[in-house]
């Protein structure tokens, strides 16, 4: 008994002693855990707090509204309109097949649409909204709103889409916006470009001033759970709307100018002769830029691309045409300035002129008889200018052309601007590697041959002639403080002489464009016609009798020019009109120009 007692005491001693050891071990280990908490929560707490935030917080860029483009009176030419989209949150919809089936008659969904929607649903988490249809009409929106109970999971999302209320009237020069392409992404790392559905300028002003118009992105910070579901908005920093762009054009004049062309193809540029502000700038026919915003269909694109009237080309700056008889103004000024002619100098026009073994014809085969420079402009006599050009030489002509703004590229914010050609000896040697021929000077005298100008350049030239000799530059952007144009070194009396000539063209007895007189009381215009051959008339054809222009296919007909200014007494507007293959400057281009000037005067643009 005693022995067993001592033995059990022995066991008890082990138990007590060892339980103390285990107890100590327990305390130690639990304090290790507290130490671990200290390490994670205090020592590394900040690191884990950051990780927790990056876990839960997600950011999305918000596209800001694009700046609008306005005309000189603040009328919006490019705006952001509401765009309604039908979206589906598939997890809220029990039967997707039935849902889409019921929706089909309302939204006119095609089987392709349905296939795409189903594919989108399969590829996204069930709480991600899937786009069903874009650009809903008001009718569609209201139908969906009324029936919202029948379509669980359907939401109507409101966004902004760029639109051009004046459609083809402003396609040139505004251009259009479109989706961001791979190439755009490579050129720029602006974060906005990554925003799904973001649109950037693809042509025209939309492209040139894209960064200003774009604005500053907003940031939406929201909380997501582990599956990416948005739980709540944390912070919404609104973006900043892009800068508005105020243009110098007057949309009323722009429309009138466009419509004045009727079925003709061509371009017109109207300038304020004192400031160089472009008041109207049309290229006809044009296109509807709204078609491009959401991506143009191949069919529409091909129609535009293969139209022989080239609606996609901005003919006002990209179209290079021989100036024809309008160039006689330049030649006259050059000759008067150089002193090779005066108003007293007379030439005799017999209808033709021999130079070497080459015969040059006047447009009037019977000839004009004796005439001075004013009469030569009025009658657009070719022989007078052949002779004047010969006396003057090509260099002087080229020099005056540049002074008056031909052959120049202007900083108007548009791409694809062409410089045209103002030939001289050096130019020919450099580009064609041939010496200059005297006969080339002769035809340059009537604006044929190598000479090429754009409607914008011609309008600029006219503005400089009629504003008293100030070197205005065309501009599209309204400026608070316009810079005063420099005076060109041309004698005022010489300017007056050619101006008188242009007055006679319209108002003189037997002027070439008398039919185009303004139908406004007390206001007269001056101008100059131009008709330029697109094809060469061969000797054989000349012998047989020249084919009438109307009998030729459209693309071989002559181009028709008319440039005009008004009012004659105190010029304010200058316009250059080209009617491509319009056959006759006086018959087709002049009426267009006079319609435009009449409208400008009626509008009294300030």
């Amino acid at each position, binding site marked *: 008994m005693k022995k067993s007692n001592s*033995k059990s005491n022995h*066991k008890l001693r082990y138990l007590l002693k*060892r339980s103390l050891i285990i*107890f100590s071990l327990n305390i130690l280990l*639990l304090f290790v855990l507290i130490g671990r908490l200290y390490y*994670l929560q205090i020592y*590394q707490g900040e690191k884990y707090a950051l990780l927790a935030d990056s876990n839960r917080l997600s950011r999305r860029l918000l596209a800001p509204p694009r700046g609008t483009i306005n005309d000189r009176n603040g009328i919006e030419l490019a705006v952001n309109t509401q765009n309604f989209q039908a979206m589906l949150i598939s997890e809220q919809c029990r039967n997707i097949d039935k849902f889409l089936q019921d929706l089909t008659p309302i939204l006119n969904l095609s089987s392709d649409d349905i296939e795409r929607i189903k594919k989108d649903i399969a590829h996204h988490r069930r709480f991600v909204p899937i786009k069903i249809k874009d650009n809903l009409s008001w009718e569609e929106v209201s139908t969906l709103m009324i029936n919202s109970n029948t379509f669980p999971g359907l939401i109507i999302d409101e966004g902004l889409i760029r639109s051009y209320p004046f459609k083809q009237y402003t396609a040139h020069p505004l251009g259009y916006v479109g989706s961001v392409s791979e190439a755009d992404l490579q050129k720029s790392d602006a974060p906005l470009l990554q925003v799904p559905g973001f649109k950037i300028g693809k042509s025209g002003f939309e492209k040139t001033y894209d960064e200003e118009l774009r604005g500053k992105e907003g940031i939406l910070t929201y909380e997501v*759970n582990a599956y990416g579901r948005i739980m709540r908005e944390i912070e919404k920093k609104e973006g900043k709307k892009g800068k508005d762009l105020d243009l110098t054009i007057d949309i009323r004049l722009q429309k009138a100018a466009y419509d004045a062309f009727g079925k003709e193809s061509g371009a017109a540029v109207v300038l304020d002769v004192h400031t160089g502000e472009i008041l109207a700038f049309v290229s006809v026919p044009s296109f509807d830029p709204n078609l491009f915003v959401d991506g143009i269909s191949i069919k529409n694109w091909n129609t535009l691309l293969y139209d022989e009237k080239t609606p996609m080309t901005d003919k006002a700056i990209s179209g290079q045409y021989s100036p024809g008889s309008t160039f006689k103004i330049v030649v006259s000024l050059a000759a008067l300035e150089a002193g090779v002619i005066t108003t007293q100098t007379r030439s005799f026009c017999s209808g033709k002129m021999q130079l070497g073994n080459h015969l040059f014809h006047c447009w009037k085969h019977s000839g004009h008889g004796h005439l001075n420079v004013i009469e030569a402009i009025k009658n657009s006599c070719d022989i007078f200018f052949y002779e004047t050009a010969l006396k003057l030489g090509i260099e002087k002509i080229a020099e005056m052309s540049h002074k008056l703004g031909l052959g120049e590229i202007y900083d108007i914010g548009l791409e694809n601007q062409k410089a045209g050609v103002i030939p001289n000896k050096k130019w020919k040697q450099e580009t064609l590697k041939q010496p200059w021929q005297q006969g080339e000077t002769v035809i340059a005298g009537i604006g044929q041959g190598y000479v090429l100008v754009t409607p914008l350049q011609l309008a600029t030239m006219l503005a400089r002639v009629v504003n008293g000799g100030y070197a205005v530059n065309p501009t599209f952007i309204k400026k608070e403080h316009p810079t005063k144009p420099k005076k060109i070194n041309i004698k005022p009396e010489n300017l007056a002489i050619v101006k008188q000539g242009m007055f006679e063209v319209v108002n003189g007895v037997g002027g070439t464009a008398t039919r185009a007189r303004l139908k406004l009381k007390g206001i007269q215009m001056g101008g100059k016609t131009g008709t330029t051959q697109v094809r060469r008339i061969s000797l054989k054809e000349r012998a047989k009798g020249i084919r009438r222009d109307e009998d030729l296919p459209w693309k071989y007909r002559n181009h028709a020019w008319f440039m005009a200014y008004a009012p004659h007494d105190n010029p304010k507007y200058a316009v250059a009109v080209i009617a491509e293959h319009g056959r006759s400057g006086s018959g087709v281009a002049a009426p267009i120009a006079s319609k435009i000037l009449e409208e400008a005067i009626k509008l009294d643009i300030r």
Partner: protein
Amino acid sequence: MTLLLNRNQELSLKERFLNLNFVFIGIIILLASIGCITLYSVAGGKLSPWALNQALRFAMGLIIMLIAALIQPEFYYKIATPFYIFTLILLIIVDAVGHIGMGAQRWINLGIFNLQPSELMKIAVVLQLAKYFSVAPIESIRSIKGIIIPVILVAVPVAFIVIQPDLGTSLMVLFCAVAMFYLAGVQWWKFGLGIGAVVAAMPVLWHFLHDYQKNRILTFLDPERDPLNTGYHIIQAKIALGSGGLWGKGFLSGTQSHLNFLPEPHTDFIFTTYSEEFGMIGGALVILLNLILISYGYWFAFRIHNSNYFGKMVILGLNTNYFLYIFINIAMVTGLLPVVGIPLPLISYGGTVILTVMTSFGIMLSFYVNRDRELKK
């Protein structure tokens, strides 16, 4: 005097009730309340689906604990062996026709709740070992021959739990048994030998491990190895815990748990949920409360009558078992141990653990209640 007088006298029910340790019970209730509050938060500020349910289970657990505490301690001595055999049979049945849950066969579906024999085995092994060591003389315990039987008593259920497969529970039973062997007086060097044998057998055992278990161990060693699956759990748990800081993000404001970044935020990983919202202060509070609870356990073992070796052994075994729950769970969710699927008792959602630990507390209290008398055999 009273001590001597009452030495072998059974106490009345009222006396036994008054003899309960109410501070000990208070701490248990406090911890369970923290659990319910956390479950309320995990549900996004709602009583359902977990908090109310858990409160009800805990209330039932309290009743079970009281019943177990008021039962005469002799009962546990008597049922030790039958209970051990019964539980072993249940364990074998589970292995044969177990309910499949979480990739492991662990439960018998009894309709209202799932019976998890491996949990019962934690108590059964303690009772059976305590009984064996209380009877065995010290010479036998310290001899090689004398520990063959207790080793078998432990090895058989552990083997059945391992093949379920439930690595966590089998390790817990094993560690608990090791502690009891040690307390009984088994020499140090035998443990060294045992550990050596296990280490030597490691490559062979590795072979028998399931792929997911191998993965868990490898991922524990290098969480970045598998950042989307098991590693993801550990990383997210550490983020939840670490981002809590000193004072926590505040009640109902834990982003990691509420936004579903945390795996199983209401069961095994509830401590991270809790620490995210209540910070290091809250976390340390739970650990310290548990430390007090465990200290009480040691106090009970020390306090009861020295003749009651069985009682002391049972208390220390169950207490060690409870300690292992706490330590393994918190070490696991803080990235100190591999994820082995051990819940945090009194706080994690789940009925089985409540049943196990509350019964254990009840048994411990039963010995404490009758602390001044000898055990009648």
